[in-house]
Each structure stands twice: as structure tokens, then as C-alpha cells.
């Protein structure tokens, strides 16, 4: 109906001088934007289907295509922009909840960009990582309260709780098989292995082909318990209990039955074609004591050999919640900020629920220190880390390591078109369609992930060297290395940093 017509956000511009009607764009677009008009011998397009993933633009041999912001607009209005109007139209038409993908794109403050990093001048000279040792190795897990020596006087290391050893304090965050493709998972698993770090199965189980990467795999247990069984628990280097996700705090998830292929069904251990419903809560957790019970059931099932991670979304009372988790027996707390990505989340929740990870991290680290339980757990943060400077700032605010999800997907070819929910990812990442999945070559994908993290590692070393710091341990929680810029008193207080110039 005419009243349901929404203005396309983007317009497809084709240069007729350049287009040779080779039909590559048509073959590459799973959204069926392009088609060949046999009568005129020309390519045509329907921009209303375009999601601006740039697949056609990237592959057009004559660079004849451009995707531009559509100049067509409703009457300009500061309160009611095109999206606000379009969303009302769509909901009035369907009665459905709005669904979105990837992280919160709204224009909220980015605190990473309001913090500046220190460097040494004259005194405490800087260190050149190209010729001096620089330690980026990190251990995640509960640390003992005191050093103990054996009968021979040597430090005892046989009594340590289980630890994850990372060559670089960057891990790939949880993305399930089902939400992303087989080839994307293979790329992450191989990259984690080569980098000496970890990737995370998400709640979709572990594909039988990837058990060999187990020593670099974190296996996840969520409320739906998909794919969770003894062999799966034993396969991973650590087990993550997913309580919450930054993109959708407080709610569960529904993987639609259409995406439960035979392979996904086998990996998740659920019926083919049925919706995979992750309830919002774990039905056995109503308190920290109950959380402790799940933590210990997993420890018992794996004979206390693996660290247990509890992942939560950054929400208003995150410091108090983290304090409870640190007393539950968990070894690592992972906190996901409100910018964190997702394969699908209700738009209103993604865009309005949760808090920035920078503030959550600072308040959690401070609270655990005040309560003298910081060494009970390691802290891993995710949900907005874009580059190595964000990593350095996170560690200086108190993180032991970071999770990257969106950045890893970008390395694999994601163009952040934010339409993962429709399962037609033209880059072969967020799809289960075999013809699309094969577009992501895991031999190339894993190498690009290795390149990205290696580059960040070098940059982290350079920044640490500049500060006169030669190990991650000496940077962790070292908030004197940060200064705020353009922040008010309250923000500086929560971040626990001084303003630039102080």
C-alpha cells in the first residue's frame, strides 16, 4: 500500500559510461537488487532492497557502481527523522517488534575517544619494543592470595587455579555457529590457534570439525544449553556461562527455525527446523548462590581443570553484580558493553539498554579493588573495541584482556550493513546459504585475522614502550597513564582518571 512505502536509505548509482553489463553485480547480490533488462541490454536496480553491503561495488570490474545516501527524504524534522518515521510505518503495517543486527549505531558518547594516553619524556625513558623485550603475554584466571614456596625454596606453581594463557590480550568474542557461518568459525579457530589466543563458540555448540582447535576454544553455556554435553565441555580450554549480552541485556534470543539446517541442528543438538529459543534467564539461576551452583557443576563435570568465565552485559548496577560474581567461584568475568554486536536483537533494546563499557569497566575494577577481591577474578571487556588504542585504554582502566567481535568480522570482510538477521550475508559471514558461505575463504580469512591482531600487538607494544612500560601487568589498572579530554567531573570520577593538563 502507498502508506507503507518507505524511502530507501540508500540509492544505487550506476555510471552508464562505465557499466559493461557483465552482470557480476546481479550474481553477487543475494538481496536481488540488480537485474539485466534484456530489452534495453542494460543493468537495472531496485534500491529498496539494497542494504549497502558494498559487495557489488567491491566486485564491479569497471567501478561503475556507487551506493549513496538517498537524497529523497520526508520533510526534514529535527525530532522525526526518516528512520523514526519509517519505523512507525513498518510497525503499523506488520505489528512486529523491530529487529536489528550488529552493535548500537546511535550517536552516544564514545569514552575511548575522550581519553588520552601518556608517554615518557626525559625521565623514565621510553622503551623501544623493536630492540628490547616487551611482554604482551597475559594469564586469565583467579590468582592466589600469596606466594608459596616448596621445600626446596622454589616458588610453587603446582597449586595455581587453572589459567588461560594469552600471547596477546585480545580474544575473539562469542559468535555462534548458526549466527555466523562454518567458514567464519573456521577462520576464527585457526587464527586463535596461530595467535596463541582464544575464540568462543557462542551458544551454538562446537562443530565436530573444530574439536581439534579445542585448546584455543572457549565453549559457551547459555540458558538454552545448546550443544552442551560432556565432550563439548571437555573440548574447550575454558567454559563461559553466558548470562547477558551487551546488544540485548536482559533478554534471550530466538534463532529462527529456517536457520536450523541439518548441520546446525547436529551441532546445537536440537530438532531441525524448530526455533532455537534461548530463554531470557537461566531457569536455575535466581541468585549469586544459584550462579555458584552452575559454576561448580561445570567445575565438577570437568574436574576443576578449566577456568569458568561468567559473561554479563554492562548494566546500571554492574559493579555490585560483578562483586557477586567474583564471590561465586567464577575465575573470569567478561563484561559486554552496550555497543556490543549481535546477529539479531530487538532494536529498542539494542539502542536503549545498557551502559558504555568504559564506565562499567572502571567502576567494576574499582569496586573489586575496594572489596579486596580483584585477584579472585580476571576481567575481560568487549563491546566497542575498535583498535589497539582502545585495547591499551581498556587495560589501563583495569581490564586483563579484551574481546573483539565486530572488528574480527570486519577483518573477515563484514561491511557493517547491519542486516545479519535476514541470513543473506553477501560476504559469507552471517549466513548458512552454501553459495554465500563459500565466498568467505577460510585460508584468507584466518590470515587476515592474524594480520589484524599482530598489527594491534605491535601497536600496543609501541604505546607501552612510549609510556616506559614493558609488560601488560604494569599497564593493567594503571590509570595514571590516562587523562580525560572534555569530560565532566562525574565522568572523570567514575573513570578514575584526571583531566588532561592535571
Amino acid at each position, binding site marked *: 500500500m502507498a502508506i507503507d512505502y518507505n524511502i530507501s536509505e540508500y540509492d544505487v548509482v550506476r555510471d552508464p559510461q562505465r557499466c559493461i553489463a557483465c552482470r557480476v553485480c546481479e550474481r553477487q547480490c543475494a538481496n536481488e537488487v540488480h537485474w539485466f533488462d534484456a530489452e534495453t541490454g542494460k543493468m537495472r536496480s531496485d534500491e529498496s532492497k539494497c542494504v549497502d553491503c558494498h559487495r557489488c561495488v567491491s566486485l564491479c570490474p569497471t567501478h561503475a557502481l556507487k551506493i549513496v545516501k538517498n537524497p529523497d527524504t520526508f520533510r526534514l524534522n529535527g525530532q522525526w527523522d526518516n528512520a523514526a518515521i519509517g519505523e512507525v510505518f513498518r510497525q503499523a503495517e506488520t505489528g512486529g517488534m523491530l529487529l536489528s543486527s550488529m552493535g548500537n549505531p546511535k550517536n552516544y558518547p564514545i569514552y575511548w575517544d575522550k581519553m588520552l594516553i601518556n608517554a615518557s619524556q626525559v625521565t623514565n625513558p621510553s622503551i623501544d619494543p623493536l630492540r628490547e623485550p616487551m611482554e604482551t603475554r597475559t594469564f586469565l584466571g583467579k590468582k592466589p592470595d600469596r606466594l608459596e614456596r616448596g621445600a626446596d625454596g622454589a616458588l610453587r606453581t603446582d597449586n595455581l587455579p587453572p589459567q588461560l594463557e594469552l600471547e596477546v590480550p585480545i580474544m575473539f568474542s562469542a559468535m555462534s555457529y548458526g549466527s555466523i557461518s562454518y567458514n567464519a568459525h573456521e577462520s576464527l579457530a585457526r587464527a586463535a590457534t596461530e595467535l596463541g589466543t582464544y575464540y568462543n563458540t557462542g551458544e551454538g555448540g562446537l562443530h565436530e570439525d573444530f574439536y581439534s582447535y579445542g585448546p584455543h576454544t572457549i565453549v559457551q553455556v547459555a540458558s538454552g544449553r545448546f550443544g552442551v554435553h560432556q565432550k563439548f565441555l571437555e573440548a574447550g580450554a575454558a567454559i563461559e556461562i553466558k548470562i547477558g549480552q551487551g546488544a540485548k541485556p536482559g533478554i534471550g534470543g530466538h534463532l529462527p527455525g529456517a536457520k536450523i539446517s541439518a548441520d546446525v541442528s547436529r551441532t546445537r543438538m536440537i530438532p531441525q527446523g524448530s526455533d532455537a*529459543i534461548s530463554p531470557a534467564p537461566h531457569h536455575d539461576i535466581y541468585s549469586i548462590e544459584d550462579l555458584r551452583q552452575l559454576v561448580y*557443576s561445570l567445575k565438577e563435570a570437568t574436574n576443576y581443570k578449566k577456568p569458568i568465565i561468567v559473561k554479563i552485559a554492562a548494566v546500571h548496577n554492574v559493579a555490585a553484580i560483578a562483586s557477586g560474581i567474583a564471590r561465586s567461584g567464577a575465575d573470569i568475568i567478561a563484561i559486554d558493553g552496550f555497543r556490543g554486536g549481535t546477529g539479531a536483537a530487538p532494536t529498542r533494546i539494542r539502542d536503549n539498554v545498557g551502559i558504555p563499557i568504559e564506565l562499567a569497566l572502571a567502576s567494576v575494577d574499582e569496586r573489586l579493588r575496594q572489596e579486596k577481591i580483584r585477584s579472585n577474578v580476571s576481567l575481560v571487556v568487549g563491546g566497542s573495541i575498535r583498535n589497539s588504542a582502545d585495547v591499551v585504554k581498556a587495560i589501563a582502566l583495569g581490564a586483563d584482556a579484551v574481546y573483539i567481535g565486530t572488528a574480527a568480522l570486519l577483518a573477515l570482510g563484514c561491511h557493517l550493513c547491519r542486516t545479519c538477521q535476514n541470513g543473506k550475508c553477501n560476504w559469507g559471514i552471517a549466513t548458512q546459504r552454501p553459495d554465500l558461505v563459500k565466498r568467505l575463504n577460510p585460508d584468507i580469512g584466518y590470515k587476515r585475522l592474524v594480520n589484524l591482531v599482530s598489527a594491534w600487538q605491535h601497536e600496543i607494544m609501541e604505546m607501552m614502550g612510549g609510556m616506559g612500560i614493558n609488560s601488560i601487568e604494569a599497564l593493567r589498572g594503571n590509570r595514571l597513564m590516562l587523562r580525560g579530554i572534555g569530560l565532566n567531573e562525574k565522568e572523570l570520577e567514575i573513570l578514575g582518571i584526571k583531566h588532561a593538563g592535571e
Partner: protein
Amino acid sequence: MTRIDAAEKYFQQLNEEIRGASGEIVIDNCCGQRYIGAGMSGKDLLINGVPGNDLGCYLNGGTIRVKGNAQDQTGDTMNEGTVVVEGSSGDATGYAMRGGKIFVRGNVGYRAGIHMKAYQDHQPLIIVGGEAGSFLGEYQAGGTIIVLGLGSKKAPMGNLCCAGMHGGRMFVRCEELPDDLPSQVNTAVASLDDMASIEGSLKEFCKTFEISEKEAFSGRFYLITPNTKNPYRALYTFY
């Protein structure tokens, strides 16, 4: 056979002893120790007393028989094997189980069989001799739940059962089902074919607890099934 005295024993020590033993294991004086049989396979446990929460969690084979009551989350996320409880079992019995069997002679608490699933030849089964609490079979995605209500005068289940059910089957022996079942399930008196599909399991249950088959098979059985595998398909739209 190994005998372990659980009296005054912390759960970690008891479970370590169970992990170290093999074959048939008898646990005496069990009193609330949690996680017994976590991830176990290939062993047979006989428990005298009351085991604590998470009995047989992630169970991957073997058998557990409790000569008494069990507490909450019996058989949590179990994959294979058999759990037999001669008394009653607590809340969330069979939470997310995807294989194996749980037989309870007495009653089960709230949310039994919640998020129970199934795939391929993994077809989990819960049979309850007595009654089930509220929210029985919540989010049930697969497998079979049978509630016999032996000795019950009314429908042997609490309030709001089958909420979110989208797979599997539930059989309830009673004259009349409660009237608060959700709209996304179908109910019908079980057909002869339906009954034939559970006859073997029911006979095994009767034999396990020495219940007369005549009593267990008497009266009317209802079959509850979901009417869609995709309950939330129409819930969303995109912009």
C-alpha cells in the same frame, strides 16, 4: 562394587571418590551433596539418602538410582543414561535434557522438563509416577514427558504448564486437563497408536518401581503437542 560412606563428607571429596571408582558404586548416608555423577558415564550409582542439587548434571551414560528423594535440577542438561528416583524430585528436574531417561516414582517440582530437547536418535524421556508442579514442559522443544498421577484425583499438574512448548510430546493420565494451557498447544485423548509408542517405556517404569501395569495403564491419557515449531515467527519486523 565400591561402597562410599558420604556422612559428613564435603561434596568435592565425595565426587572425587566417585570419579576415582568404577563399575557399581553404592553411596551410603548421602545428605545433600551436590553434583553427584556430573558428566559421568559407564558407572552405576546407588544412592542411599538424599543427594543434593544437580544430581546427574551433564550425565553422559550409566545409571543413577536414588533410594529416597532428590533435590533440584536432577539430570540438568543430561545427554544419555538413566536416573531413577524412588521418592520425589525437586524443581527443574530434567532441565534442558536431550537424551536418556528420568523415572520419578513420586512427584516433581516446578518446571520439570523445561527446555527439554531432542535430535536424531537422542530422544529424552521423563516419567513421573505422581504429580508435577507448575510450568511443566516450559519451552519444551523435544522428547517425551509422561505424568501418571497415580493416586491423584485431579489433573496431576500445576498451573501454566507447556508455556512456550514448541516441540516434543507430553502425556498426562487424568480425566480432565487443566483449563489454563496456552493457545500454542493441541490437546487430544491419546490414540491407540500414541499409547503404543509409549507402552514399552511405561512397562519399564512399572517394572522399575513394582507398580501394577493395570493401574498405570488405566483411565484416560491425554496427549499434548505444540501446534507450531516456530512460535515467534510473526513476532518481528525489520526496518
